[in-house]
């Protein structure tokens, strides 16, 4: 469904992505793992055009184009099919939870008011935030803000949702409520790319793991395989380190 080929990205003279081939099929949950600085965020940002790639191709359903040649109008159309959940939520601070969800529906997708309201109510209910509809982001906890941010993304019925470490800005006791919402989405068959440090989530929920190392994809395999028979020394080391943390926090 969504695919990039031979994606390259430099910041200044430093090459951060060194030829990424990445694809995701409908209904899949792909977890992107890798140590800090390996380029996970940059990959998601290039996929959503928040960062301009230097080289590569993008394929989204029947759309296929050189990623550097893409026009602003096409970017907007592609973004309409994507949701993005940020590490630090990025809820619109001048709008209530409800208005945050309404914004894209009313202004970008031009959904008529009554339908938009119904969708907003339903999605907020789904993430358990309906009672807090009229709260401003500053009045919500991190976990609540992230749930509203997820509602804002799914309200627009994107074909794929990109998550960039959705729980890593949260206090440990708040990660559960956000992960639960994401698990529910996965059960419903939502297509998701999730950059995460939550090994539990990657093991239990993801169908496939992509492991990034130094700007390359070092492993791309079914979740079970990845954890039971790691391919190389770097992955083994990464797993030893992170799974040790994971066991420890449980």
């Amino acid at each position, binding site marked *: 469904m969504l695919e990039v080929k031979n994606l390259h990205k430099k910041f200044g003279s430093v090459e951060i992505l060194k030829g990424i081939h990445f694809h995701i099929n409908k209904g899949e949950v792909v977890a992107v793992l890798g140590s800090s600085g390996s380029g996970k965020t940059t990959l998601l940002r290039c996929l959503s055009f928040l960062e301009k790639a230097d080289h590569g191709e993008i394929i989204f359903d029947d759309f296929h184009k050189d990623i550097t040649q893409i026009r602003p109008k096409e970017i907007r159309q592609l973004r*309409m099919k994507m949701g993005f959940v940020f590490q630090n939520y*990025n809820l619109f601070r001048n709008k209530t939870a409800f208005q945050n969800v309404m914004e894209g529906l009313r202004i970008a997708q031009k959904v008529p008011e009554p339908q938009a309201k119904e969708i907003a109510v339903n999605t907020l209910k789904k993430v358990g935030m309906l009672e807090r509809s009229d709260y401003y982001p*500053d009045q919500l906890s991190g976990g609540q803000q992230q749930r509203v941010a997820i509602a804002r993304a799914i309200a627009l019925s994107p074909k794929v949702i990109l998550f960039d470490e959705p729980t890593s800005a949260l206090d440990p006791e708040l990660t559960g409520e956000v992960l639960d919402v994401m698990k529910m989405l996965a059960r419903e068959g939502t297509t998701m790319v999730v950059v995460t440090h939550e090994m539990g989530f990657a093991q239990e929920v993801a169908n496939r793991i992509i492991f990034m190392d130094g700007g390359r994809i070092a492993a791309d395999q079914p979740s079970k395989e990845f954890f039971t028979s790691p391919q190389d020394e770097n992955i083994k080391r990464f797993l030893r380190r992170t799974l040790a943390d994971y066991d420890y926090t449980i």
Partner: protein
Amino acid sequence: MSERLLDILLSSFPKLLLACLRATIPLTVIIFAVSLVLGFLLALVQIMDIKGLKRFARIYIWIFRGTPLLVQLYIIFFGLPSIGITLDAFPAAVIAFSLNNAAYNSETIRSAILSVPQGQTEAGYMVGLNYRQIMMRIVLPQAARVAFPTLSNSVISLTKDTSLVASITVVELFKTAQRIASVYFEPFALYCEAALIYLLLNTLLTFLQSYLEKKLVWKPVERTKHFTKAA
């Protein structure tokens, strides 16, 4: 206080008040409105990185912030006639003050816009908004709240700075006080009275500021503390 002095003060009070209403307040309002629009445009061309205009804005701000307002006023009122441009005192005052205040306001507005985190814009793009919609609906409302106290401050400064235009013969509050003072030889009393009226005017403005500030706040007034993240 002698009876004569009291009489002078009482009889000049309405004259000073009238000068304030007729000249000081209109000057302030017009100058503020013009300089706000100009300042906004100067800020916007810099934010949007429009090549030639951005450079123009930087040079403009450099000049108008780097030279004294009184000198600018004199150049426009006394200087321009020598190259064939003669202006009445009032429009000359409006032009000089507006150009000067625009330079300051643009810096206030620019930094307020830049204070809105990049993530707000990115989130706007990801829900499908375009640049104009993001500016109008997300960034500028947030920037307005940041800029408001500083802009209020500049209005308060402006009411007082308009007293400078007395020096180019505009008969506003201060000029009126000067005239009466020279008739009765009572500078101390008259200038104190003028100061009092400026103080009254700015007291009103301060009330207006705090009223508007409450309206600009998008949070409900009652904040429920325990829902915000602890510590």
